[in-house]
């Protein structure tokens, strides 16, 4: 018999403020429902309210029913029999929710409820079977590791094994793939879908990114400003007459078709056999093997690779933040004047001093100019990034991530740069904010002739923005081609995997 997890008129409020209002829905076993919305829309609160895990300062109202049983009226002790046993969870940062001092085996045993001496041996075959089920080989070795000894993708698989350990009826997954690169994301999504179907589990999948769930979800629920504004079978989500908020999210997931753009022929910034080695030992693994590459004026270069592939090291060398160990970076192609390069960092909240008004932080770029002129330049930069000037008086904590990233771009523009290096500049943002920032960068490129280096682990970003793609793999530049050529004729195995991870998305979009 199909089981049901139902929530009726579920509201969450903080004092007077309503954060989630009268949400209503049903999740049946054997189906995968995606809850999609922008950051701050209340989708994570929904899972926490269902599990009875809201922070103390928030109050929940309404009913949560698991097979007709009121979960919202159970005490903490009774809920312990539900949490992790009948309903388990997946998180965005698996390593943060796991105990660093416990091995994966210990986590699994705990989740199975196998406490006490001697139990470990009895359940060993179950532990290994679970790990193999989620594709972690060799299972015996992985079981003995601690969370921080695993890579991000492995940790998320281990987390799934833990979630499955007690054979739950439902899984609530909160952005489990957002911090993974495109290839791992596709792998984990497919794995989750497969396990969900094999075991007949009901999955509630929270995400901001419609593209990632469009081929695995049965139904989509759209949340905006604490309200469920739309829901439908996944196939209908792309039709034109859906709710405006749905359209916004769908648009952010669609690839763009753009004309090839003109660029100047000369090099603006060039790496010549540049390499970087952080250890002094000659035998140590180089962070970046000798790399040669030329950036033209007005070009958008997409740089893609996994974490540790050397792409960020390459960016730091180009930006002049670090000196190459061998080879060099040529910045002077126009006589004696060095090319001006600026960097937009990943984390919007850490690139501004939390104590200072934005205006003060921004003035770092123009504090050598006379006061009047500096003020004028700041006004101009704010107009260029499309933000009201009042924002300058706020502190970083009072701005959204997307606004801060725009402010970071405005600060960079104050120095009249010719090249902007965007190092994962959009990966901390939700898909809609991400798209807005990319559009702004491309617009600046068209208007001011900026060259962009867009570094990302997300192939969707690379495909949306780039003219050319450079692929880094294990510290080496393995492929560098124009985008269309890359999509059609990638040669290196890693590039092929990247394109393949995209293809599922593209095919699904084209079909609808």
């Amino acid at each position, binding site marked *: 018999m199909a089981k049901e997890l139902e929530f009726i008129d579920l509201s969450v409020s903080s004092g007077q403020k309503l954060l989630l209002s009268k949400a209503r829905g049903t999740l049946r076993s054997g189906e995968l429902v995606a809850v999609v919305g922008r950051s701050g829309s209340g989708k994570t609160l929904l899972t926490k309210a269902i599990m009875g895990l809201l922070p103390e300062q928030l109050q929940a109202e309404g009913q949560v029913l698991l097979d007709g049983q009121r979960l919202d009226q159970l005490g903490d002790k009774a809920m312990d029999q539900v949490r992790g046993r009948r309903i388990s969870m997946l998180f965005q940062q698996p390593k943060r929710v796991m105990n660093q001092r416990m091995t994966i085996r210990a986590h699994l045993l705990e989740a199975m409820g196998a406490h006490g001496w001697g139990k470990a041996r009895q359940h060993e075959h179950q532990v290994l079977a679970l790990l193999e089920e989620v594709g972690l080989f060799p299972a015996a070795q992985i079981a003995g590791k601690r969370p921080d000894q695993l890579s991000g993708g492995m940790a998320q698989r281990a987390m799934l094994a833990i979630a499955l350990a007690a054979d739950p009826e439902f899984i609530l997954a909160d952005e489990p793939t957002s911090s993974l690169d495109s290839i791992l994301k596709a792998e984990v999504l497919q794995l989750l879908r497969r396990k969900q179907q094999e075991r007949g589990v009901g999955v509630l999948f929270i995400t901001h990114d419609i593209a990632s769930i469009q081929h695995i979800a049965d139904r989509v629920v759209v949340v905006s400003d604490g309200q469920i504004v739309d829901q439908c079978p996944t196939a209908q989500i792309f039709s034109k007459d859906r709710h405006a908020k749905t359209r916004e999210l769908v648009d952010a997931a669609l690839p763009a078709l753009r004309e090839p753009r003109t660029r100047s022929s000369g090099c603006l910034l060039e790496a010549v056999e540049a390499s970087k080695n952080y250890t002094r030992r000659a035998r140590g693994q180089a962070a970046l093997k000798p790399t040669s590459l030329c950036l033209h004026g007005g070009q958008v270069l997409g740089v893609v690779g996994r974490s540790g592939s050397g792409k960020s090291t390459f960016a730091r060398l180009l930006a002049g933040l670090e000196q190459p160990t061998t080879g060099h970076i040529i910045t002077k192609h126009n006589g004696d004047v060095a090319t001006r390069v600026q960097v937009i960092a990943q984390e919007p909240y850490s690139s501004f001093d939390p104590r*200072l008004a934005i205006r003060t932080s921004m003035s770092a770029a123009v504090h050598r100019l006379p006061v009047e002129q500096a003020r004028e330049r700041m006004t101009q930069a704010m107009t260029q990034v499309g933000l009201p000037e009042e924002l300058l008086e706020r502190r970083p904590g009072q701005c959204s991530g997307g606004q801060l990233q725009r402010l970071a771009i405005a600060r960079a523009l104050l120095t009249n740069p010719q090249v902007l290096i965007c190092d994962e500049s959009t990966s901390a943002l939700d898909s809609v904010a991400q798209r807005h920032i990319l559009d702004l960068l491309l617009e600046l490129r068209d208007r001011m002739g900026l060259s962009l280096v867009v570094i990302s682990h997300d192939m969707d970003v690379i495909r949306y923005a780039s003219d050319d793609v450079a692929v880094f793999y294990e510290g080496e530049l393995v492929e560098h081609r124009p985008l269309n050529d890359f999509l059609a004729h990638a040669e290196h195995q890693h590039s092929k995997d990247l394109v393949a991870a995209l293809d599922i998305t593209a095919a699904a979009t084209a079909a609808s």
Partner: protein
Amino acid sequence: MAKKTASRILLSAPAFILLAVVIVTIAAPLISPYDPDAQSLADRLQGPNLVHLLGTDALGRDTLSRVLHGGQFSLSVALITTLFSLLVGTILGLLSALRGGWLDEIFLRVNDLLLALPEIVIALLIIAVMGPGFFTMVLSVGVVAWTPTARLVRSMAAQVLSTHHVEASKHVGASRWFILRHHVLPFVAGPVLAQAALRFGLLLVLLGSLSYLGIGVQPPQSDWGSMLAEAQPHAIRSPWGLIAPGAAIFLVSFCVTLLGNRITHVLGGDDVLDSEPKAEIHG
């Protein structure tokens, strides 16, 4: 903002008590009922009474007048030493963090050396060589007193200098002075002021101990520590000679400590809460 912060620190009970102590101490010659040095052997070792509010000591001198006057020396030496160590500690700590390299190494080793030796032993040594006096007192305590401040400033400055937002400022062309003024000093100021207040209390006790040992102020001048030493032999017959200066030392260092905690609370706690990222509203 700054005005509000300052008023939250200064409009507090410990701040008012300290202010009162300072005023009374400065005005001691005007308000004390007797000459602190006038002896009257007939009235020796009295308890509190209407003529001598806090009684008299072994030489028949008025204890109240002596406590009021004694504060002048103790408080001024402690204040000067605190300001000195605040200034020197901040400058050396900042230099060490900004320059790094060999300067930082030397700084750390000297700091370790001074921290390893008990303050009172160093003070004893210096006084033994130079002889007692106001200047020697300041020097002997001040020579070690700057080290905790310098350590604190160095580690906090190094911490803020390694943040992404300082790197971002540097990369768009901020000068050293800009970074120092806008990023480093506001970050360092709160904890350093709080620590200075706590240090002031400790120094007051240290200076008291030196005078108690008889190597601080020399007669006929007196401070709270030397009064304790003089009253000790007669403690059983007349405990008031001990209680009055002891209470004065306690009151001042207690209030200063409370004030230090308040500074930490006002500058540290609430500020950090204000800057927590809020949920994303629009892109």
